[in-house]
């Protein structure tokens, strides 16, 4: 009993530590971002945009002239005090939604892109839950109908088989 108490305490402690780690991690992430605002923000914006000359590459990995110009433009806009969102709006205004490396979620239809996979997984989880429920129920019902005495008698015989089999594989 005492042992069990210990284990419970250990699990609770673990959960606490995990939570603390997660909180500490997210806090640390923020302070890091705060240090090098310009460059970090620039990288973030760069990562969220595509190169616009039809090369099909994300801006961050593209190296051609168009990409260089776009980067220059973003730097200038950041220097001029535009916010991240304002820069995105500007880019979308010129090049259309396609310039964003992921469908912008403020357009209602684009939410379909973001939400659908998780909805599908939830639906799948529900199906699995219902199926499991039925299978386990079926199985338990079937088990009830089986006479247990025969199994008990077999058990010893199986024990012997098990020992022999295990020796074979070891």
């Amino acid at each position, binding site marked *: 009993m005492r042992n069990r108490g210990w284990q419970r305490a250990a699990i609770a402690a673990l959960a606490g530590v995990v939570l603390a780690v997660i909180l500490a991690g997210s806090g640390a992430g923020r302070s890091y971002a705060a240090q090098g605002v310009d460059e970090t923000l620039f990288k973030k914006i760069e990562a969220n945009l595509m190169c616009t000359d039809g090369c*099909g590459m994300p801006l961050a990995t593209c190296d051609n002239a168009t990409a260089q110009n776009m980067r220059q433009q973003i730097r200038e806009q950041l220097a001029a005090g535009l916010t991240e969102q304002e820069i995105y709006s500007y880019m979308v205004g010129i090049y259309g*939604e396609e310039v964003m490396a992921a469908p912008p979620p403020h357009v209602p239809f*684009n939410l379909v*892109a973001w939400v659908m996979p998780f909805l599908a997984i939830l639906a799948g989880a529900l199906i*699995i839950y219902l199926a499991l429920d039925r299978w386990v129920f079926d199985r338990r019902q079937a088990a009830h109908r089986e006479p247990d005495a025969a199994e008990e008698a*077999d*058990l010893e015989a*199986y024990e012997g088989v098990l020992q022999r*089999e295990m020796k074979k594989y070891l």
Partner: protein
Amino acid sequence: MVDVGYLAILLGLCVSVYAAVATVTGARQGNERILRSARGGAASAAILASVAGVILVYFLVTSNFRILYVWQYTSSDLPAFYKFSALWAGNAGSLLLWVWVLSIYWAIVANSRRFQERLAIPYVSAILAINSVFFFFLLAFVENPFALVPGGVTPAEGNGLNPLLQNPGMVFHPVTLYLGYVGFAIPYAYAMGALITRQVDDLWIKVTRRWTIIAWLFLTLGNLYGAQWAYVELGWGGYWGWDPVENASFIPWLTGTAFLHSVMVQERKDMLKTWNMLLIIITYALTIFGTFLVRSGVVTSVHAFAGSALGPYLLGFMGLMLIFSLYLLVDRLKLLQEGREFESYLSKEASFLVNNLLLVGAAFATFWGTIFPLISEAVRGVKVTVGPPYFEQVDGPILLAMLFVLGVCPLIAWQKANWKNLRESFSLPLASAVVFAIILVFAVPGADWRAVSGFAVAFFVLATIFLEFFRGVRVRARMTGERALTALGRLVWRNRRRYGGYMVHLGVVMIAFAVVGSTFFMHEVTRTVNAGEVITVGDYALTYQGMDYRQEGRNTVYFANLAVKKGTRDLGVVRPEKVEYANWPEMSSEVAIMGSLKEDLYVILSGWGNYGREATIEVHVNPLVSWLWIGGYVLVLGTILAVWPGRDRTLGVRYASASTPRGWISEENDRGV
């Protein structure tokens, strides 16, 4: 000889059509003579495809520019190695390679003795014959690899091979990918054979286990080689860009992995029959769909495959096969009676359901993201891009959850696990993972919480795998009195399937470490420097010493010299290059990589000016990337171990038949996969 090549294709088409019809007729009438001739048909198709393949290779290697394909993809100064690999540089050659592999597989299956006593083989063979018919048809009438240059002239020089394709990765990536893609046609064909003949027990799964695993191995290798190729050749700084073409091979990999696991439930538990059928049908369809995505050009991709007329054919064929398979499945649904074997929510079989949910979920997410631009354009008329930020945010968490399940699943017993065992199995790995995470937070200040959780989960899985090996060795050493190392060797060898599986998992964990490390801890600096100036990235200091060039055949290689120092240690000189090809408009980058187990120093030459006195250099420090490749090797070894033939290869005791007492064997003695 051109005519011989084309004739081989036409004959291959005829023979495949004949074999498809003859096998079915022969099986229906029970006519052994027709069946035998149909088996001969399969062998002939393989021979004919080989003839066509060898002739095309001959033309490529001897630079016969009269052939359009040879002219398009090679030039006379290309090294023989790349002349040969140009076989799969274009659509026609790729299809020829496909049908070549397929027909050889088919000939093996059609003439195999196993499963022969059952009626299914002719139908399996017929399904493969239909595939073969389709691809021979494409070669004969849509993309003829033996078409001549218009006007009947023989150009003096060829167009040349895209420089990006001139890399050893070009040789391994497409071939392994095709071996994988085509390989999944085999379990699919067996599944359909089982449905057609109504012999829907798990024999088809047992017979195809090795085919499936080997196909999966090749598909995995195909993906990894693709990643490596992108990393060393394309100079984007990364190995994976979530491009539609990359996704096209990742999606069937995910469903294939799900299939590989869920069939174990059927083998042991007589359950998930319908689901397994569905999974292999989907995986097969996705391999065709992947080819369609790559070859049709319907989605914007950075991989410059020319759009061709193939798209509608591939889509049509996939649609037909899908309708046929699903009809068959629905029609035989009553036969697929599920066994009543689920005892508990907390059991390995239940955890496999979670594994399948997440793998198929990730496959769906990737698929959905890949085709969403088409949906958006169809519904709203607005083009959108679905790129890395989407997949990182959607696939990322799903795959992380999957990794966690990968740690949990193997430790849960079949039948019915109990909480006490689980606590014993998990408390140590969980605790060590938490400790690891805490150390990480303090050791790497400012680490992203996603990175920390990614590492912690990977470490947890690592600990569970280690514990499994440790316990196995301890038990064995105690029972046999062997020394630890001997015990380890024998344990693994005698339980190849199970420990091979664990090794594959170990490889996956290494890959996970590499992915998390390189995603979240990558440093990148791009600077334009004059000679003598220093670029500092992390602990590295690179001194630019100027540009130089050398001549390689008709190509000119420009390179920058950068002396590398880490702290006070001299690490030598790196030389990132740009190559100017005589017959290609754009220069291509050759990345300089200075690698170690801890991190890669990855240097790209972006450009230069003022006669090389100044240069723009992009320097990345990519942590842990080597583990991606090491993990890949471990995974390959594990897979080979798992399918290695011989007496001891399986310990897959099937103990849950109706008369067996339940519960007493599973918990303690068999957690194996």
